[in-house]
């Protein structure tokens, strides 16, 4: 009886658009869903630094290098905002990292694709960050307060990421034939994985209905995907690039683009660990963590030394 009451009050609070805060009562399943989603999101920010990190030393100019560094630094920051939000739910950082490093927790599958050319830095910013923003804007109003506040901060910073990516594509598309082909090739490779970022079709999405009732999610995967496609197609046209989908066509009745069938076998295959870079990404992440162990230990030792007054 009491439990039912608590759940009833909880749902009423959500229906009134009041935020849930860390110490408020919440159903265990709500807490679990959030830990899964926020940590997955945090891991994606951190793993997302890897394909781009690959291009810092090979950026075509000092300006592009400085921009890329700033973008990657933002991603580290975004990971931190999200880990902190996740920790308010009563799980600690070590446990979260451990789940990532052992493969128990997932991160966005998009980062299991390789960044082969400089144009990929453009395509990732334009498409991958673009799709992420589409997902993240409604999350600014998500029902869990700490998550919502982290998302507001992230969204403010994210728009530079997409614009710088599109600008790279714009510059390449105005360049030599080789440069233009490079941009088209990057679009060809990143388009489908990008629209898969919104997750399975609504009919196959396991967590969606409950998440929408709890206002963790506000729009369905398919709604957001459609919105992203409708927004992105004209941007591609504007810089003379072609979306690699022969079935893509404007539907006057729906006032939206119809698009081709998504290869969900590929999607699930990458989720299950068989993408081109899954092993490499995880290995790099674990290595970075292990290589940093002595720094973390030294910092603790130094802090203790300072506390005991042996250094100033």
């Amino acid at each position, binding site marked *: 009886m009491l439990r039912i009451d608590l759940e009833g009050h909880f749902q009423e609070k959500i229906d009134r658009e009041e935020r849930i805060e860390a110490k408020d009562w919440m159903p265990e399943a709500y807490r679990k869903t959030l830990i899964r989603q926020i940590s997955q999101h945090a891991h994606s920010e951190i793993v997302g630094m890897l394909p781009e990190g690959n291009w810092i030393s090979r950026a075509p100019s000092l300006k592009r290098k400085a921009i890329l560094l700033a973008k990657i630094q*933002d991603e580290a920051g975004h990971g931190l*905002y999200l880990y902190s939000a996740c920790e308010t739910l009563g799980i600690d950082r*070590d446990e979260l990292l451990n789940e990532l490093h052992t493969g128990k927790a997932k991160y966005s599958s998009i980062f299991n694709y390789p960044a082969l050319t400089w144009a990929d830095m453009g395509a990732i910013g334009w498409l991958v960050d673009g799709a992420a923003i589409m997902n993240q804007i409604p999350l600014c109003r998500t029902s869990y307060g700490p998550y919502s506040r982290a998302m507001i901060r992230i969204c403010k910073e994210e728009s530079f990421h997409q614009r710088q990516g599109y600008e790279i594509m714009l510059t390449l598309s105005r360049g030599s034939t080789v440069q233009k082909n490079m941009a088209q090739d990057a679009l060809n490779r990143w388009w489908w994985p990008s629209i898969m970022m919104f997750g399975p079709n609504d009919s196959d999405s396991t967590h969606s209905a409950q998440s929408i009732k709890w206002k963790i999610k506000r729009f369905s995967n398919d709604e957001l995907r459609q919105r992203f496609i409708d927004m992105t197609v004209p941007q591609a046209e504007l810089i003379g690039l072609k979306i690699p989908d022969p079935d893509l066509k404007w539907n006057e009745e729906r006032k939206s683009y119809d698009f081709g069938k998504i290869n969900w076998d590929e999607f699930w295959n990458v989720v299950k660990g068989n993408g081109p870079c899954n092993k490499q990404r995880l290995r790099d992440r674990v290595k970075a963590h292990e290589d940093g162990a002595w720094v*973390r230990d030294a910092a603790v030792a*130094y*802090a203790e030394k300072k506390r005991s007054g042996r250094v100033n």
Partner: protein
Amino acid sequence: MKNWPLFEIFIRSKSGLNHKHVGSLHAADAQMAIENARDVYTRRQEGISIWVVESKYISASDPVDSDPFFEPALDKIYRHPTFYDLPDEVKHM
């Protein structure tokens, strides 16, 4: 990161305004918390001053009791200026 305590971070965005809670981070000590908070929370000139405090030192009211706890303020509407009916001739008061 078991040994790195959690710090709550407060930022003053410009002089004249309060420090405001912005989030938390782990650091070995307060000095490192301040430096990391600068890198994490003020990359775009969001602040001119940072406070950090170890999370364990913050005491908070209990949300379960929040209704009775804040109830005493509920029925004292005479604390608000609009409670008082004054003649229209009194223009600004």
